[in-house]
């Protein structure tokens, strides 16, 4: 009786209520404002594109430049095989060690940041600050600044730079994962008398381990792409070799281009490898035991086979086992595989250490403290705020222009790569593969290349960033379209709608919010990348940053410029958070 009386009316009442009251007062205020902000950003992007002079004459000029360059340069050539192996080993070694360093550093930072594990509010703020600042300081700038305290060609500045800069992203995603993890096991450990540290390592960490590894692998890909730029800060490896080659015109260009191709192939191959591992990882949860075994088991596990292993484990020991017998862990196939892969991972790190040629005697200890101190206080040097603000604006323009180009193109690419939008599976697969290749492109290497051959700075940078952005945004768009619930689409189809009608009636509205936040994510990464463009010949804030970071007495400017980047990135993040809430 209570059910009859109570349950159905609320449903009706609620929907009537919602339709009548709730949306109307809200709609004009924040949705319209949100659309206004989005519109303003698009206008800004268009304006940036036009102000960057993509006119026909400048394009023809750059094509002329490119043809001249190509006609005068040597044919593409590659380093000797032995040298190539050495260079690849060094680059991969530096990236492995730098990413590993960041992965380890990000654990305490994330622990401080996450609401569920943070011991005190001030530690949350400290964690967030570290995360935001490390994300905003470009790794190349760090490498250049560190290089002063090291012997020339030492890999340590590169490792440290990657290690510190990557902490920002890894710790943020890791903290998110911690906040999404189940609080129950933590409570159980607390109730058993466990300390905070024990709560984390026994209850939280095993839950978030897959997310952590996936994030670290993702970061490894990004760092590999960035590592080419580290050559411009004097860090050895493929990037350095490429830079040396490109310094000699025209005879070095063939060699430089060859190395660029090697970097490109390396990036695409490792992108495919790591995304395969990530997919396995997020599809399944890795099981316990030692860390190494877990990492790789997680990376390689096959769910169905795993299940059958356990099946037999359940049925087999029908014979009574004693406690002493069980102390020895049985060598199941799973365990053998785990241990093998675990030691494989350890071996990889060891090999990286050796390849990267880490040598602590290369540190000039007497320069370390002055180097650190030189960043304070912040200063404008011989410039003033207006100059830096103008440069910042140029960087923001490059970021928005590239993001807008990426957005338009990746809407097409992404839609065609989505199962529920593509006209046929063949089309979908073709565009999926295209996106993987785009994603593998190291956009900064592309930028270097374009700047070299066209002689243009920011325009070439925009094109390069836009290219890389398609790979990322296209995939995110395709994924968000595929996540649209099928029921909604079927409902629209049953009304007799065409494919296009269905897309605009059901897929688009549902995917819109993801589109907004993904595009802003792209703007955010573009700002960081555009900052670096100055180092390879573009303009904007990166130009001043590069200038200042190579001279110790100018380090105060580095602090000022980095603070400006931090503020910009924070504003973009704030707008993104707000828009996500508005278009919920």
């Amino acid at each position, binding site marked *: 009786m209570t059910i009859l009386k109570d349950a159905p009316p609320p449903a009706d009442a609620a929907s009537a209520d919602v339709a009548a009251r709730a949306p109307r007062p809200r709609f004009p205020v924040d949705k319209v404002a949100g659309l206004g902000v989005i519109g303003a950003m698009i206008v800004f992007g268009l304006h940036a594109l036009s102000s960057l002079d993509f006119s026909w004459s400048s394009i023809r000029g750059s094509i002329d430049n490119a043809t001249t360059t190509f006609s005068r340069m040597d044919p593409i050539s590659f380093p000797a095989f032995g040298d190539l192996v050495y260079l690849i080993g060094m680059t991969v070694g530096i990236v492995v060690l730098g990413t590993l360093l960041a992965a380890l550093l990000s654990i305490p930072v994330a622990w401080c940041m996450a609401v569920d594990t943070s011991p005190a509010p001030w530690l949350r703020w400290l964690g967030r600050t570290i995360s935001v600042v490390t994300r905003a300081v470009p790794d190349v700038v760090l490498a250049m600044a560190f290089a002063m305290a090291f012997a020339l060609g030492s890999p340590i500045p590169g490792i440290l730079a990657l290690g510190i800069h990557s902490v920002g992203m890894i710790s943020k995603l890791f903290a998110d994962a911690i906040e999404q993890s*189940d609080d129950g096991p933590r409570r*159980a450990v607390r*109730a058993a008398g466990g300390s905070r540290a024990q709560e984390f390592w026994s209850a939280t960490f095993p839950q978030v381990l897959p997310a952590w590894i996936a994030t670290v692998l993702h970061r490894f890909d990004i760092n590999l792409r960035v590592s080419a730029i580290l050559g411009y800060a004097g860090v050895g490896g493929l990037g350095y070799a490429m830079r040396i080659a490109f310094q000699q015109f025209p005879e070095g260009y063939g060699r430089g281009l060859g190395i660029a191709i090697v970097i490109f192939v390396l990036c695409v191959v490792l992108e495919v490898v790591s995304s395969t591992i990530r997919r396995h990882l997020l599809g399944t949860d890795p099981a316990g035991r030692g860390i190494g075994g877990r990492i790789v088991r997680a990376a390689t596990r096959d769910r169905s086979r795993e299940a059958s292993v*356990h099946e037999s484990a359940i049925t087999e020991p029908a014979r009574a086992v004693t*406690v*002493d017998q069980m102390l020895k862990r049985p060598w199941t196939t799973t365990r053998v595989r785990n241990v093998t892969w675990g030691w494989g991972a350890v071996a990889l790190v060891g090999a990286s250490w050796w390849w990267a040629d880490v040598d602590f005697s290369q540190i000039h200890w007497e320069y370390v403290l002055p180097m650190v101190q030189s960043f304070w206080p912040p200063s404008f040097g011989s410039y003033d705020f207006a100059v830096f603000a103008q440069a910042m604006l140029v960087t923001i323009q490059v970021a928005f222009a590239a993001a807008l180009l990426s957005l338009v193109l990746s809407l097409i690419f992404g839609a065609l790569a989505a199962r529920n939008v593509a006209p046929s599976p063949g089309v979908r697969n073709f565009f999926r593969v295209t996106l993987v290749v785009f994603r593998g492109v190291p956009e900064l290497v592309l930028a270097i290349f374009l700047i070299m051959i066209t002689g243009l700075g920011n325009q070439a940078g925009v094109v390069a960033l836009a290219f890389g952005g398609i790979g990322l945004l296209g995939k995110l768009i395709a994924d968000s379209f595929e996540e649209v619930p099928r029921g909604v689409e079927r409902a629209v189809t049953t009304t007799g709608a065409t494919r296009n009608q269905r897309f605009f009636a059901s897929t688009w509205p549902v995917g819109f919010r993801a589109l907004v936040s993904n595009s802003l994510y792209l703007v955010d990464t573009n700002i960081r990348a555009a900052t670096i463009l100055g180092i390879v010949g573009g303009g904007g804030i990166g130009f001043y940053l590069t200038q200042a970071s190579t001279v110790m007495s100018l380090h105060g400017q580095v602090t000022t410029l980095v603070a400006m980047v931090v503020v910009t990135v924070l504003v973009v993040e704030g707008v993104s958070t707000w828009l996500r809430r508005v278009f919920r």
Partner: protein
Amino acid sequence: MNSTTTSPVISVSKVTKRFSQTRALHDVSLTVNPGEVVVLLGLSGSGKSTLLRHLNGLERPTEGTVEVLGQTVPELGQKELRALRCRVAMIFQQFELVPSLTVLENVLTGALGRLRGPRLGLWSYPRALRLDALAKLDRVGLLEKAYQRADELSGGQQQRVAIARALMQNPHVLLADEPVASLDPESSAQVMRLIREIAAADGLTVVCSLHQVDIALGWADRVIGLRSGEVVLDTRNEHLSKTQVMEIYRGLDPADVADLAALDSELAGVQLVGTAGPGSVVA
């Protein structure tokens, strides 16, 4: 209550607990003697979990005080509180095992309170503890499952692992917050029997919250009824029958029919289907 002359293991006196708006407990006083098996009964939101969480210091009373094993819980510092929690084990409705760890590792986390520093992986625990954990698993009949992932076990098995984890603390007191609310009747019976056997063998004092009047009556030495954060019933089990419990519930606040209907639907879901009890109470 006066069955023994020894001092009580748990004594709660005049505890009131307020969360910003709600009053979860109101002037609750009770004592539990060594070896007693007590069930807390009450409707959803009556404060059972909150009361249990006061007993191991997961909550602090707004007023009043709680003494467990001779310690005044709200006054304890972090270190003493951890030491107390080592001797007061707890099991939960949702088991709260770490799904991606092996069963054995989960059991071993019960020993963390005695260990210094964080542990990760089986080999970070001393061999003696691993042996002990296996013995505890043997006790709950799951020795063979030691190296399986916790989330590959059935709900009843997972709760038995949680019991093994609690035993790992070598506790004096066992707190159980609706340990069988997520289990089917058969697993429920098995888990409750296991807790009872272990309590008898180890001389544990048990405080267990339940929804099922039937299980409570067949299982407890003593039943404490809570309603809206107040103790409305505290009687030794032999003096009670199910209808009496229900009568007392109803007698205390005859106006509140909705509560009884809610209780009834909860009861109907579990073990009482087909028995005369609930029908006669609410019909």
